[in-house]
């Protein structure tokens, strides 16, 4: 029983970390219809900024998160304006080509400026201590990640389902031309959603850095994981992404516990099985 609880809590933490990083990509792919393979690159940029702020300037973890999110969004504005805007509505493969190109450039440039070593984001003492939760110890940071994941999920749900912006966003997604005709500024809606997605990537990159460490190859190394999570959840669905992250986190963690030698087999077999049963992901909308 203790073991099951223990595995469960690990799975939950890992799943939530994945969720925070991937939900931004799910929004870009589901709502904006852009296959943004450079998503991880933005998470990585945020990680570098956070590492610089927290480690080299010593300004603390909270500041690091805020500055990383803001800095990454600012950096992404020219990219959105000059590159991404050209590929809205293009074929998926053109989008893949463009965003892989951007990813390569970001990797090359970070490698040049920051070197190929791992970058850490020092945690405040409160988060770096193991906490005793009765049946085992767990890093406080993991509890923090779980809380962040729940907050992000609830917040996003509220924004999309309950606010005026959410209504405009959903209208734009369903029928951009009609929304435009009804007075919704679709360009603005797109720009804001893009910034939101990038901001979430940045937040996830920093908060999830304890699971997926920041280094120049981050964007390529975890690209597959991100894509898998989004498609299993169904692009654009928050609930789907939450469930996908929890299921995949659970499969991954229990697989690695029960039969570590075949951990990968478990994971990818589960992916194939889920996709075959739910071809649009758990909560994907019909195209």
């Amino acid at each position, binding site marked *: 029983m203790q073991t099951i609880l223990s595995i469960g809590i690990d799975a939950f933490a890992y799943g939530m970390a994945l969720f925070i990083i991937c939900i931004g990509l799910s929004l870009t792919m589901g709502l904006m219809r852009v296959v943004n393979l450079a998503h991880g690159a933005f998470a990585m940029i945020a990680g570098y900024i956070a590492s610089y702020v927290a480690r080299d300037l010593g300004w603390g973890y909270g500041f690091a998160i805020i500055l990383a999110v803001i800095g990454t969004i600012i950096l992404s504005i020219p990219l959105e304006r000059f590159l991404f805007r050209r590929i809205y509505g293009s*074929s*998926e493969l053109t989008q*893949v080509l463009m965003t892989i*190109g951007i990813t*390569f450039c970001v990797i090359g440039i970070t490698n040049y400026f920051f070197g190929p070593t791992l970058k850490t984001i020092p945690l405040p003492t409160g988060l770096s201590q193991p906490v005793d939760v009765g049946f085992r110890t767990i890093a406080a940071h993991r509890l923090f990640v779980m809380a962040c994941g729940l907050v992000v999920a609830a917040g996003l749900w509220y924004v999309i389902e309950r606010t005026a912006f959410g209504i405009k966003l959903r209208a734009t997604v369903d029928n951009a031309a009609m929304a435009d005709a009804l007075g919704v500024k679709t360009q603005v809606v797109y720009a804001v959603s893009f910034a939101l997605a990038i901001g979430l990537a940045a937040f996830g990159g920093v908060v999830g850095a304890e699971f997926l460490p920041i280094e120049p190859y981050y964007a390529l190394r975890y690209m*597959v994981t991100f894509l898998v999570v989004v498609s299993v959840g169904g692009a654009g669905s928050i609930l789907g992404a939450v469930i996908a992250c929890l299921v995949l986190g659970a499969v991954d963690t229990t697989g690695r516990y029960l039969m570590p030698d075949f951990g990968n087999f478990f994971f990818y077999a589960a992916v194939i099985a889920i996709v075959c049963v739910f071809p649009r992901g758990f909560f994907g909308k019909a195209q």
Partner: protein
Amino acid sequence: MQTLAQSEKLAAAPSLGSRFLRDAIGIAAIIVAGIAGYFLFPDNLALLTRVIAVGLLVLSIDLITGYCGVATLGQAALFGAGAYAAGIACVNGVTEPLTLILIGAIAGAAAGLLMGTIMLRAHGLAQLVLSIAIVQLFHEAANKASAYTGGSDGLAGLMLSPLFGMFEFDLWGQTAYLFGLALLVVVFVVLKFVVASPFGMLCRGIKEDPVRIGAMGAFVFPVLLKMFVISGAVAGMGGALAAISTQVVGLDSVSFELSANALVMLVLGGLGSLYGALIGTVIFMGFEHVVSAINPFHWMTMVGALLIAVVLALPGGLSSIADAILPSRGRTRGGKA
């Protein structure tokens, strides 16, 4: 209705002739370029052979992505199946190169059958993710079966007998290159016939509108599956060629990275014409080789910039330049996947 059909037939007749002419010119151009490569870069034949092997892989992706509209990020599973089958056969005493290519083709076709069966259950993004999952499973299996595949250390010690009993596979790589070139030309000619056949037309039709093709009475799944098998055979031959010319098979030949690179090469060159596949491969690998030789430390930024530039300037891929120059070749291309 009848007149319509007739007029279509009339319109089709000259285009059929001109298409043959165009393809004859295209194939001649490949042969000339291949032989020119032999004389212009006599010191880089190993690289050029690698380009041919990867070119076969990219061609195989064009068959299912460009002609059937099924995007895949897992094609290296088929390439690797061919490479490992040829490699294992070679280590176990089958050393005749042509036989090894055949073995690679069969293994690739079998893998293609398996992959198609699974992938065709889904569409769009889910399909893409299935392809990734499959190539990762293949990779894991090759790593696990290290007793047969050498695992991450690679399968070494492939000793080939000379081609036709006369031509050794040696350091200079002339045999390997010319052998590869001949293989490429043969495969290309065969594929041109395949895609021009009624079966090829059916595939294009499915790409445009599967529902309509189904309504016309054709079964979509078996047609696509057949293309997967053909594609697998082509990819498998590419893998076998890589195994023969390198004499080592590594886990990289069943990797997601290779699959992704190959898809990038295809989109770079342009989908759905077979030429685009080869152009994309040559440009991408040539660019990578030259840039990384000039500056081995920062070539990735350059490659990325090239990809972005192509999307901005030539959304249809590099082969669309040729379309612009030769209006007769203008056909819908680089469209939706």
